């Protein structure tokens, strides 16, 4: 039972740790599929995390925090677009610049506004996204009543009505002996952003392969001249792709500072944007693959935390650094062509210039 518990716990933290990777990875997917390399995922996550935590603590609302995280992150994405789409600048340079601006400005503004050494104040309940645990669900079921006392009450009651049936189902599942606790640990007990991240996987797939926007997005990353001659604006299309990127990095940042942590800490993205890029290559720029790549990288992270100091059977003690390096090692192996070929979007990194 101990081993099972340990496994469930590792898997649970795998999910928690892979969510920011997944969001950033999907963000990068929109941008790179449109032919814009985005090494600035890291920076956009960071400003998202800062803006989210700052706004949440000032306005005492998690949702205002999330909105601000998205807004600022999109704004940074637009800066990247302005440099690399409108002015055909070097996309790598622009991305790196964004990372630097993000790292510096979050600390300076954090210190200037909150005087806590670049941190934002610890978020209070209500200012961060709470986990939807089995207890929360049974509590909700126990206390639910339909009230028409005020408009606000009415809205809450209607929302509750919609959530009532799924809640009943999950409550019942969580009560099944044996299976229930695992279900409660793995599937329940996460914040709404976790479910959003995983819902974005099929949604992104659907957008890319089943909508007009997706078709054009993929086309512009492969051959922008074809898109241009088909009478579609390459510029506007790429900007829209970057807006999608900004939204997702914003959510990823909000997750870091408002779910995983109770506030912003300087440099809290800690290279996740780069791991997400590695995952994107590992996933060959495909959304479902991206999810598995992020889960794998998240698992390596979770395992390295779990195994710190404790020896593995057969292999013995494995340094945590080794586990942390594995995502990059795996990506290099992939790029070297050992696990099939990773072919990036063909127009990636090249500013589009009309030619004769």
């Amino acid at each position: 039972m101990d081993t099972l518990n340990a496994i469930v716990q590792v898997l649970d933290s795998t999910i928690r740790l892979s969510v920011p990777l997944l969001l950033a990875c999907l963000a990068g997917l929109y941008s790179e599929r449109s032919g814009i390399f985005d090494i600035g995922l890291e920076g956009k996550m960071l400003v998202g995390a800062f803006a989210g935590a700052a706004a949440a603590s000032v306005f005492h609302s998690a949702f205002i925090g999330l909105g601000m995280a998205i807004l600022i992150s999109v704004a940074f994405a637009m800066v990247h677009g302005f440099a690399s789409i409108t002015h055909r600048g070097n996309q790598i340079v622009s991305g790196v610049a964004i990372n630097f601006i993000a790292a510096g400005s979050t600390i300076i503004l954090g210190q200037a506004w909150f005087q806590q050494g670049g941190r934002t104040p610890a978020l209070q309940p209500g200012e961060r996204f709470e986990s939807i645990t089995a207890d929360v669900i049974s509590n909700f079921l126990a206390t639910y009543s339909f009230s028409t006392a005020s408009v606000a009450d009415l809205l809450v009651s209607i929302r509750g009505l919609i959530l009532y049936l799924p809640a009943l189902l999950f409550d019942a599942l969580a009560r099944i002996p044996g299976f229930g606790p695992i279900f409660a640990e793995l599937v329940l007990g996460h914040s709404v952003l976790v479910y959003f991240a995983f819902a974005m996987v099929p949604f992104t797939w659907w957008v890319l392969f089943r909508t007009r926007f997706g078709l054009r997005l993929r086309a512009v990353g492969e051959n922008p001249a074809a898109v241009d001659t088909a009478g579609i604006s390459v510029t506007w299309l790429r900007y829209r792709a970057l807006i999608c990127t900004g939204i997702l990095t914003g959510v990823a940042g909000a997750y870091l500072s408002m779910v995983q942590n109770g506030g912003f800490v300087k440099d809290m993205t800690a290279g996740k944007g780069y791991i997400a890029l590695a995952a994107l290559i590992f996933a060959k720029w495909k959304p479902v693959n991206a999810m598995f790549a992020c889960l794998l990288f998240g698992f390596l992270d979770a395992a390295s935390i779990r195994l710190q100091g404790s020896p593995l059977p057969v292999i013995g003690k494995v340094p945590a650094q080794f586990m942390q390096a594995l995502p990059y090692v795996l990506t290099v192996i992939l790029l070297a062509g050992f696990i099939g070929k990773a072919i990036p979007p063909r127009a990636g990194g090249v500013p589009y210039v009309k030619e004769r």
Partner: protein
Amino acid sequence: MAQAAIELVGINKSFGAVRANRDINLEIARGTIHGIVGENGAGKSTLMSILYGFYQADSGEIRVGGKPASIKTSNDAIALGIGMVHQHFMLVDNFTVLENIILGAETNALLKSSIAKARSELDRLEREYGLEVDPDAIIEELPVGLQQRVEILKALYRGAEILILDEPTGVLTPAEADHLFRILRQLKEQGKTVVLITHKLREIMAITDTVSVMRQGTMVATRETSKTTVEELAELMVGRRVLLRVEKGEAAAGAVKLAVKNLTVKDSRGVTMVDDISFDLRAGEIVGIAGVAGNGQSELLEAISGIRRAVSGSVMLDGKPIDLTGAADPGELRDRGLAHVPEDRHHVGLVLAFEENENSILGYHDDPRYLKGPFLNIDAIMADATDKIEKYDIRPGNPRLKTANFSGGNQQKIVLAREIEQDPGVLIVGQPTRGVDVGAIEFIHKRLIAMRDQGKAVLVVSVELDEIRSLSDRILVMFAGRIVGERGPDATEGELGLLMAGIEQEAAA
């Protein structure tokens, strides 16, 4: 004459100082196949890009179906029923045929209905025009001929009544080209108007009803195809002879310096561009390779100079083999006394951002003459550059000036000086005077003849027939990757023109 599908009135377009189109007037009749011929850079593609909304004319008017039209974007052109098949296909290589066809012409935000509509529409087009192609095939897995068919289908799917094809046969095999012509005739029978841009006169004669000739940005003539000849069109295309014929004595051809045997070269698309070519180049002679651009001369040059790997064949330099299908690289060839003046001086011959003196030793920079230990010997390099500037009259005579700031003729002299002054046994020159003004042309020609008189072997590839005729001691004509004839320097322009156009004719040698 039938009603005009398109009228162009007084079209002007400049790119910086270059006037690509000057005061162009053109009328294209509905339901005909209209050819536009001209040399590279004559302004054909620019004109058609204006018609397709890729560029906007500086001045002039476009009328489509008799009504003045404002074409600002490709969208406008598409809405007016103008479709274009570009020389380099505008297809997304890893998309399916269907995806490419609906791109930009989707019915709504979701793809499902667009795909269904395109599928049934493709079915209809297939029946009507015999344009069969598997809608679910991936573009990059299709042969070039079929890719082009997808381009045509794309235009028809968007309701094109006027179809512009830019150099459509450049990438096709003869059989594919014949199929294309059948399709074009069918389109014409259905009342569509076809505009065919090409520099291949044979195609013009074979398929068009009317033909317009462009030269240096102007429209020089329009003829009914049945009332003109290849010779007349060739003369119109090339224009008056501006070239001075350089005086030269009899060639004293010596030993074979370069022997090419059964050389075959493919381009990056995998199309065979040089097809089993054999020839000898002797000391003390200039051999000219004539041909319309795109008949494999570029690939031949690139292969002999070690830039492009040959598929098969053997080449002997001074009696010793060089492995052009494998290990040979330009450096090795250079060491063995083969110098190369590339066709494209901007991208291959020079680094435009470098100073003149740096370019004047480019490729020879590890020669001990220019080195001081592991470092460049700046003094020696500057002295060398100054020397070349004097000898070749390169202007402005400043070795520290950025190469991009020299005119085309002077840039070409920089390259020539660099290669000739290494005193190579074999000199290979591509388009020696492309974009070079008349004075410099004469200078360059004299230099090349002086090389010959010193007993060097010189191979000249040029699309300028006059140049070939005035320089060469022997003329080889290339057509469709093969040498279709060898003539002496006294061959007439008409005779060579026919060979260049691929019209086999046994003229008395």
